[in-house]
């Protein structure tokens, strides 16, 4: 009789223990799965964003169609930029500089959006332009693309 009683009690404990273990495994497993899904989703989003930015930057293409002074002596310069790429771009900065003298004028551009195959004329004023024979002109987009040219005053 004693033996039968003893077997019954051990079986119950084992079941309870097993249930606890399975519960623990389920909880830990669920937590691991949730964490891994969350982490992968975050990294996937970052990667998607990076790749997307890079591809958009690659698709971005523009040229200086015309750079000219509007007056003689030159104190205002018009820069005409044409978007020859497949995506819209946003010019956010034009820099006019001269290496030898260190002259550097940075003009921030509002409303610099150019749709594909469209052009944008940006006027830059500076009374000292006429003091330099040749000026470097650089345009930068919000995605970081840069084009550069030179113009004479």
């Amino acid at each position, binding site marked *: 009789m004693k033996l039968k009683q003893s077997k019954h009690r051990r079986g119950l404990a084992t079941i309870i223990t097993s249930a606890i273990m399975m519960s623990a495994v389920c909880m830990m497993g669920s937590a691991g799965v949730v964490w891994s899904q969350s982490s992968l989703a975050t990294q996937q989003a970052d990667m998607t964003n990076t*790749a997307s930015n*890079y591809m958009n930057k690659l698709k971005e293409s523009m040229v200086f169609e015309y750079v*000219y002074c509007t007056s003689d002596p030159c104190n205002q310069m018009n820069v005409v930029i044409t978007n020859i790429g497949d995506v819209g771009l946003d010019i956010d900065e034009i820099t006019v500089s001269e290496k030898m003298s260190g002259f550097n004028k940075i003009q921030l551009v509002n409303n610099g959006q150019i749709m594909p195959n469209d052009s944008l004329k940006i006027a830059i004023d500076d009374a000292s332009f006429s003091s330099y024979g040749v000026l470097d002109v650089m345009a930068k987009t919000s995605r970081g693309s840069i084009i550069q040219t030179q113009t004479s005053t």
Partner: protein
Amino acid sequence: MKYRRGLSSVIGMIFLVVVLSSVLGYFTYGIHLVEQVNDQVISKGMENIDKSREDFEITNIRIDSGKFNLTVFNTGEIPLNLTRFWINNVTDSSWPLQNFTLNTIVTPKQIVTNIGQETELYALDSQAYSMKLITQRGNSKEISINSPNQEKLDLKLIALPETVPDKFRTTLLFTVTNNMTNQNTLLNIKPIMNTPQTTGTATHMLITSMVPTHVPILRQGDAASFIWIYEISGSIGESVTFTVSLENGISGNTASATVSINDVLLAQQSTTALTATSVSGNTAKDLLFFHAETEQTPNNAFQMYAGDPDIIGNTISVETDNPKFFTNNGTSVNISQGVWNASLTYFSAPFPDSLIDNNNNNMIFHFELNSAPEDSTENTSGHALGSSSNRPTYQSTSGPHGSGAFSFDGSDYIEINKESENDIHRSPDSTALWFKATDGISGKQILYRATENNNDEYYEIGIDSNDNVYFEFLTQKNKIPTKCISSGFDYENNNWQHLVATRPTDQSCTLYINATSVNTSSVGTGDGDINIDKIFIGAEDDNPNYGFNGIIDDVLHWDDYALLSGEISDLKNTNYGNAAHLVTFYINKTDANGIVESNIATSLNYPLKFLDGKKDGDFLNSFNYSSAIGTGVSVTSTQRLVFDMQFQSGLDIDMRIDDMAITQNPKNSFLQTPNLNSSFQSYITIIGDQSNTLKMYSAGPDTVWITFDNTRLTFSDTISSNTYASLLLQANGTDVTSNKDSIAFPPFTTLNLTFSSAKNPPSTSGSVGVIPPGNYVMKMHLGGYDVAGGTISKSINFGTVLVE
């Protein structure tokens, strides 16, 4: 128990599978993204390739019906779409810059015309425009038209002939060359003949108006010609100056030609040119030519008087002769205050004395013209100034000594034609040049490179990425190059540096900067024989790579000689520019024996420009000495003027005087005074009561005969109006009469013409009316004919001569 452990394992496995599948999905997505990026990179690369393959030319441009008409030729490999047309009116600044949208597709090798005809824009023939066509891929081409006011054009006006008798005609030939630097096409070229300027009583009459009336188009590099015919009238010595400009041209861009009136019409009538020796032509009295004769001068110095050069010429080594030129005494002359000029026709020695004999198997470039470089030694030729887009910029005064030099922008180059004189091979070799490197350039820059087509063997001088100067050569493929390199100093510093690279033996080198050896060298291996196919200055090749940024001048190369240290020092100190020679000039008044009585002008160490004599020491140019004298100068009849040259330093200098073969520009060397009231007496003396013999020289090309009837000497008293004449008696000792002409006078020979004593009335014999002693203006009138059927008619003014 075993069963329950199995259940846990199954649950664990399920979670594991979930996690692994997520990770797998993540990687798959990542790979997909990389593929997308890769596709985009390839696509971008293809776009760039397409852009570089796109090319076109604007082959023609006209204004038709008041609108632009451009012709475009697709010279590229792919179709292109012209999307925009920009037009700027250069003449009218009130005209805004305009652009028009196009949509013109041009397939490869297709020519499309009428571009611009659809635009609502009207153009005027008389105005200048610059235009730009843009393609969809962003390429563009610019062209300018009808804008001679943008920069000076090469204009030339030539009178044919320059000297005519009274009421004879001359043809004026005007040429316009479109030498603009910006690929400018000129439209509707219309020359304007300004009102001719005359001297004395000279007049002009237009016989034939300008032909053609205009030239509709003149492309870059092309030339157009126009002619007028005028009849000129007036007295001997008078002239008419014609000046032509261009409609809508830049101010001051004109060409002029002066037509003088004389009895001579050699070029038109006989094509044979005669020159009287020991006589002056129609020389202005203020032009005191330097003569080679030394008779009647103090200390055997040279004669100086207002008479044409009269011998085959004499070359003076100024550095050893220190020449003096004296006028004759005998007349009183008052000279106004003003500028005294000496036009000196000379050439400079190509090297300093220590190198003077090393002028074989070499080449020299001084870059004195904005054109393909010319080797001063004339040992090599056929050199080229890069390509249209990689052409170095000529700067006429930017050299280390103020002379011309070429500026390189990193992609420009000069290609030197390979010939035996620059064909490296075995040692020794030397290359010298001046360079001024722009500061702040990264990477290697080539100054001079000779190489095989496959680049296996080369000879290269340049500046490396650390701003050190190097000289490196490789004599055999897969061997070790020999290299010399400077260290510890930045030569890329916007300053002029003189560089000499020498190769004394097949595998050794030395590098000198500013005549100081600066190199650390490493000895290479190979067969010692450098085979080359091409030579470049300023870039590695016509690709071009490793281009130089800065200015280069005075490139010299010796193919069989290694310069020595002393020679390099002399070369570095040589001025090939505005002060190649320093000469001290004195203009003095002396007594009849040449003793200085007073100084008129002194110019110490006056700089004289380097004048290139090319291979044979030719007199191709002249250079002026000038001195402004604030007071007038009086020279009495017992005094002389002396022009004294004392060489101080610099390259040797050979000056040409008294060369009757030099008749155009440059002229023979002379001193020009300000205005003077009468002529200095020449060195010619005539014996009044005897016959006198004068020498004539025939410059050819045909044999001539002199006739009695029209050949005379006339004398006019400088004080009174008394006049006298001599008749021709003999030619080379053979009688000449009204029934017998002179003996034949072959080209390039001298003929002695003997004249009777001067009388009034003139006669061949007797003593009635013989000219009394005194100073007279003497002229010779020559008549004759040549074997080609032409007529000789020439009048020559001797200037003031002394009759004893």
